[in-house]
C-alpha cells in the first residue's frame, strides 16, 4: 500500500537518490523553493501517476502526452495548494480529472467513428507493443475498460493501488459509502467476466 510519508530509492543516471516525503515537499514549497518542490514531486510521483494514467488509457503514447499535461497542470495549480488535503490525494485528483476529461473526448470521437470507446481501448491493448502480460491480465484490463467511469476509477485505485476509501473519496469527491458500492459492482462485473475464461 502506498504511503506518501515513506521515501523510496530512485535509480537515476546520476546514481541512486531518495525521494522526498510529502511533508518534505510541502516544507520546500512553503519555504519559497517552488522549483525544488516541483522537481521533488516529479521525482516521487512520475511513475505512480504514469501507471495510474496508463491503466485508463492503455497506450504508452497517449499516457506520455497526458502525463506531461498533468505535470504542467500541477505546476500551475501548485500555488493554490493550501495543505488542507494530503499532497498525494491532491496530485491524484488532478491526474484523475485529466484522465476522465481525456476519456470523455475519446468517447465523443468514438461516437463519430461509430465505435464504442471501450472497443477502441480494447484494440489499443491488443495492439500495444509494450503489453507484456499474460492472457488473464489482458482480459482483466479489457474488462476494466467496459466499466462505467466512476467504477473504473474506484476499482483501479482500490484494486491496484490498495488506496483507502477515505483517500479515494477525496480524489473523486464521492462519499465513502457510494465508493464502496461502486467498487462492489465493479468487482462483481469483472469477476464474472474473468470466470468465463476459466
Amino acid at each position: 500500500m502506498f504511503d506518501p510519508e515513506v521515501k523510496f530509492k530512485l535509480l537515476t543516471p546520476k546514481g541512486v537518490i531518495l525521494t522526498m516525503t510529502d511533508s518534505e515537499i510541502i516544507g520546500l514549497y512553503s519555504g519559497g523553493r517552488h522549483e525544488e518542490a516541483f522537481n521533488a514531486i516529479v521525482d516521487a510521483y512520475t511513475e505512480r501517476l504514469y501507471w495510474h494514467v496508463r491503466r485508463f488509457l492503455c497506450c504508452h503514447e497517449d499516457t506520455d502526452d497526458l502525463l506531461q499535461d498533468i505535470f504542467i497542470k500541477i505546476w500551475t495549480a501548485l500555488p493554490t495548494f493550501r495543505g488542507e488535503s494530503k499532497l498525494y490525494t491532491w496530485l491524484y485528483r488532478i491526474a484523475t480529472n485529466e484522465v476522465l476529461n481525456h476519456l470523455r473526448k475519446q468517447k465523443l470521437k468514438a461516437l463519430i467513428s461509430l465505435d464504442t470507446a471501450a472497443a477502441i481501448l480494447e484494440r489499443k491493448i491488443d495492439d500495444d507493443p509494450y503489453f507484456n502480460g499474460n492472457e488473464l491480465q489482458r482480459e482483466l484490463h479489457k474488462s476494466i475498460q467496459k466499466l462505467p467511469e466512476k467504477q473504473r476509477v474506484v476499482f483501479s485505485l482500490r484494486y491496484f493501488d490498495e488506496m483507502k476509501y477515505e483517500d479515494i473519496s477525496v480524489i473523486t469527491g464521492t462519499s465513502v459509502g457510494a465508493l464502496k458500492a461502486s467498487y462492489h459492482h465493479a468487482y462483481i462485473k469483472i469477476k464474472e467476466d474473468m470466470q468465463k475464461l476459466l
Partner: protein
Amino acid sequence: MKQTDKDILKDVAELRRMPYSVPEGYFDTFRREMKKPQTQVVSLWSRIMPYASVAAVFIFLVSAGTFILERTTDTRDFTQEDYILFSENFSLNTIYQVHEETQLADASLADEDIIEYLIYTGVSAEEIEYSK
C-alpha cells in the same frame, strides 16, 4: 459450482501486477525534461556586491583626486601687492621691454651703418645717393 466459488481476482496475485512496460530509460528522460531549472538562492551581499564595487571605486577616485589636488595646489591668499610683484616677473612685461629696447636701438642707428647694410645687400652707390 466449484468454478463460481473461486475468486480469480483474489486468488491470482499476478493480476494486480502491471502488464505494461515502457520504452527503455523513459522515466529518466521524462523526469529530466519535466524538471524546472532551479533558481539559485542569491544572498543579499551577492546581489549588492557589483553596486558596492562601483561605489568603492568612485569613492577611491574622488578621495585620491582630492588628496593630490590639495598637495599640489598653493592655497595661499594673494594680496594686491603679490599680484603686482608677480606681474613684474611676467614674461609679457619682458616682451614690452624688448620692444622698447629695439626702438631705442633703431633710433641710434647711424647713416654709415645703413649705407653699409645697403651695400651689403647689393644696392648700387647711385641708388643710395639718389635716395638721400
